[in-house]
């Protein structure tokens, strides 16, 4: 039932209206423009409404109408490949209808009503069968990449009393009917609706077992995230959060990618829209846009819709999860969402606790991240939502509320550093500050699929990096001459790992995506060089000479010299190292090299 009332007070995005029967969460339409908002509090007969659109021009006395439904998204074929605003309005259709500027009060359905989709009912499903919510009714080949499964809405269960034959249907056509226990008949369509703030149900949570392969070495090899895991990328401006998230959207082995641009730049979404149709999935060879869906609420769009956009994105992600897909959702940036919360809280006069944020910031973030995970779906299959949030701490200070709360919630933390970004070490992920709780689980996958010694090599390289950090402290006090030959070699090897392995430019055609095999080969090459060098030093080769080996400059270029499908070349490099060091060993192990041996030994 919708209720009528009128506007009393307007202050920025917050409107108070006389609306005696409105419920919290209910949608409200305001004024002559028909601006949409939702009730966030009730005080006597008055409703406090947060408005998704700019309220300029609204007047006290104008009508307010409660719409009877909470904010919901529409789910069905036709949403992939699209770009929606924070309220799931298709931006391309808005462009056609009203031009390049977004007008207010526009109501545009998320899905094309007229388009017909080839629906194929589930073969085993017979009329008379008992079916439950979440069951797969049939499927629609949405594009060459994705077969969209049509699910019975979670709240419906009973006897299937009809099911159409295979054929072309619009999203509003009835494709089946179910009679529930009370005898009520429910019509089933290709599309359904779901309220964004309510997590979609599943049978049970399951363990995440597989790493999400992103093709980024610092992620996959060093700080892995599992499919169904929760990760965060905090960092100051310009450190590379967006580029990393775009890399994940491009190259990760997820089946569906939901990219939520929350309060960030318009041009960044344009870039995705421009480049993704030309890029192909390195695994399927299909255009990336076929598996991608964009939700865009840029920083110049209204603040409240920013808060909503992450929930819209998450509900879309859960919907594909329920069809059995591995979904990745990237949200850039969760800080803008938290700031929208703060702004609304401030206007409501709620007591701020830290930096103006309300007391419920932590619990709101936690509840949201909890919607990620790997689950057994209602139909008994498996699906996952992996959630990766960018965090934009003011002044790059990780102790601020949003970063510190997020850090407590997530399982993988890719901390970006301003110093690394300033030196153009990309991705600027700080290996000392970052962590992953998933290394052991990921190791099982690497050992089964790539190589048995993955974990050992990974840990070895991290150890070298940490040792180098210590040594650098010494060098900065007393200079490099104070180090032993072995220590200098450790320093150099750590540099090699940093430049030859950790650094990975998103712009480098051959290295933007790095397959697990290539990651492993590079990793083992770097450690191999370290080990062999260390051995030769023991035989007495002067460290200065070792540092002058042309191999070291060459090794830094291997990553860009060989693409993931040119690994034969890399393997050849690995073989070539052997005779090189053998020759050195022969030289220094032989008695004639005694002289240089004694020279090379340092204090």
């Amino acid at each position, binding site marked *: 039932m919708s209720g009528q009332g009128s506007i*009393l*007070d*307007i*202050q*920025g995005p917050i409107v*108070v209206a006389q609306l005696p029967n409105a419920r919290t969460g209910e949608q409200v339409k305001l004024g002559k423009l028909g601006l949409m908002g939702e009730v966030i509090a009730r005080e006597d007969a008055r409703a406090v409404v947060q408005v998704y659109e*700019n*309220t*300029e*021009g*609204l*007047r*006290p*006395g104008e009508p307010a109408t409660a719409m009877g439904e909470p904010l919901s998204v529409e789910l069905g074929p036709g949403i992939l490949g699209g770009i929606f605003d924070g309220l799931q309005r298709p*931006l391309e259709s*808005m*462009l056609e209808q009203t*031009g*390049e*500027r*977004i007008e*207010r009060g526009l109501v545009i359905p998320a899905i094309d009503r007229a388009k017909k989709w080839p629906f194929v009912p589930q073969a085993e499903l017979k009329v008379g069968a008992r079916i439950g919510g979440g069951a797969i009714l049939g499927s629609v080949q949405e594009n060459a990449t994705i077969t969209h499964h049509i699910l019975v809405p979670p709240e419906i269960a009973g006897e299937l009393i009809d099911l159409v034959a295979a054929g072309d249907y619009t999203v509003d056509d009835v494709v089946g009917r179910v009679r529930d226990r009370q005898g009520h008949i429910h019509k089933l369509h290709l599309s359904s609706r779901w309220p964004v703030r309510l997590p979609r149900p599943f049978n049970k949570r399951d363990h995440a077992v597989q790493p999400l392969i992103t093709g980024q070495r610092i992620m996959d090899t060093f700080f892995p995230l599992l499919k169904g895991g929760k990760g965060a990328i905090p960092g100051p*401006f*310009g450190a590379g959060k967006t580029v990393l998230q775009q890399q994940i959207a491009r190259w990760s082995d997820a089946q569906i990618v939901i990219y939520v641009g929350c*309060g960030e*730049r*318009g*041009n960044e*979404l*344009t870039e995705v*829209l*421009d480049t993704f149709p030309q890029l192909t999935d390195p695994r399927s060879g299909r255009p990336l846009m076929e598996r991608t869906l964009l939700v865009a609420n*840029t*920083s*110049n*769009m209204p*603040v409240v819709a920013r808060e909503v956009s992450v929930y819209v994105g998450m509900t879309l992600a859960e919907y594909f999860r329920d069809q059995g897909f591995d979904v990745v959702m990237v949200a850039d940036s969760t800080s*803008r969402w938290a*700031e929208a919360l*703060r*702004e609304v*809280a*401030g206007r409501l006069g709620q007591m701020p606790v830290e*930096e*103006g944020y309300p007391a419920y910031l932590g619990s709101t973030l936690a509840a949201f991240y909890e919607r990620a995970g790997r689950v057994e779906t209602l139909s008994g299959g498996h699906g996952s939502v992996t959630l990766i949030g960018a965090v934009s701490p*003011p*002044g790059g200070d990780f102790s601020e509320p949003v970063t510190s709360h997020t850090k407590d919630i997530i399982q993988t933390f890719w901390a970006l550093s301003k110093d690394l970004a*300033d*030196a*153009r070490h990309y991705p600027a992920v700080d290996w000392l500050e970052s962590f992953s709780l998933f290394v052991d689980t990921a190791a099982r996958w690497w050992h089964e699929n790539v190589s048995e010694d993955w974990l050992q090599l990974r840990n070895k390289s991290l150890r070298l990096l940490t040792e180098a950090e210590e040594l650098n402290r010494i060098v900065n006090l*007393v*200079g*490099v001459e104070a180090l032993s030959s072995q220590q200098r070699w450790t320093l150099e090897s750590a540099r090699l790992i940093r*430049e030859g392995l950790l650094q990975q430019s998103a*712009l480098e055609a051959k290295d933007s995506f790095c397959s697990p095999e290539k990651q492993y080969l590079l990793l083992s090459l770097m450690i191999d060089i370290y080990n062999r060098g260390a051995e030769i030093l023991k035989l007495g080769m002067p460290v200065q000479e070792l540092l*002058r080996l042309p191999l*070291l*400059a060459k090794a*830094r*270029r291997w990553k860009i010299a060989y693409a993931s499908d040119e690994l034969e070349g890399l393997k050849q490099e690995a073989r070539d190292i052997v005779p090189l060091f053998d020759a050195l060993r022969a030289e220094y192990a032989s008695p004639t090299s005694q002289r240089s041996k004694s020279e090379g030994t340092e204090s």
Partner: protein
Amino acid sequence: MSSLEYSSAAWARGGLLAMRKVPEAALGDRVVVRDHQGRQRSGQVIRTSAELVLVQIFEGTDNLDLERTWVRFLDKPFELALAPEVLGRVFNGVGQPRDGRPPIVSKLSRNVNGASINPAARAYPREFIQTGISTIDGMNTLVRGQKLPVFSGSGLPHNRLAAQIVRQAKLLHAGKTESHGDFALVFAAMGVSHSDARFFEESFEESGVLGQVATFINLADDPPIERLILPRVALTCAEYLAFDLDMHVLVVMTDMTYYAEALREIATGKGDVPARKGFPGYLYSDLAEIYERAGRIRGKAGSITLIPVVSMPSDDITHPVPDLTGYITEGQIVLSRELAAANVQPPVAVLPSLSRLMKDGIGEGMTREDHARVASQLFASYAKAQEVRSLAAIIGAEELSEEDNRYLQFAEAFENRFVSQGEREDRTIFQTLDLAWEVLSLLPKEALTRLSEKDLDARYQQAVSE
């Protein structure tokens, strides 16, 4: 609502005027206030209810006698009249003439708040603008439609840098430079001193662009609240020039820190919850509404390139205004006090500087094939050289290794020859890149791993390194 005058002022303070019993005033409505001396001030409704309407007064609320203050609600939003004649004119923050000439009369007027550009309507900026300044062109390239601020500090030459960009900016086509064409400049000054304003005016005059400039000025001794509306007025003008008249518009806005301070003043008056350093939590969104108006639109010939100047109070880049600006803009050019003290002009600190749109505007066909790698190598080598410098400061230069010493030489040459250039020196991108090779060649070949072996064979200058 008719244009009745109300005299029901309840209170006035900090630029805010509260009115009782004004029925149905719309949010954002423009307001004209007449004070007891008959002087007019303009304002805008920022909160409205049947009981109380809150108006923000751009000229401030000093000297208002509540009993003798009359307020007229114009029943329309804040609009700016637009015509091609805006070029060559000087206005105040609310768009009224400041040059003694008559106001712009036109059938066309637009809401100064603008409406957000649909992200699906944007065209990605990718046309290289040659500024003739090596640190920008070579390492932090500007493209048409980009928003690239200059982060500076008091006493640093940000105005001279901005003026040099305005003077030298040009497009490059197939290796040849192209003249301004349909070029216009919008200059928005908030809280700047008289002498700074004069400096810009003289500089525009001297480069012969004065007739192509629309100027919006609020000086240091003008009412601060007016700074809140000024950038919106100026950008409305820029949008008109770019997207109605198909011009390529360069907008220079200085100084955004004064703008934000005015915002803080009003926010405090309204009792908004502060986030950091007393600035309201919505400062990010507010700045974004301004900065995001730059860009290109599909199917339109014009563009808005935005260069805001942001001074960093106490040279602190984490201060909310530069910090939030950096989170919105597409990079930043950072000026350094140390370099200025060492007489490096313009004192651009390249490491914290960044252009995010550089990657699509450079390379084969746009600048030169090796551009991206050269830039990347300069950044890496200079970062390394800075480490060596701090090491040298501790252990002394004589203790450094041979290689480290070459880094020191490189850093010197980089700063004195590459970064440093005359205010009148207009380098082509090719001169800039050649210069980059010259200084990079001071380093051993093996240290230049971000360049390809092909690059090194073609351009590494053996002689220099010996």
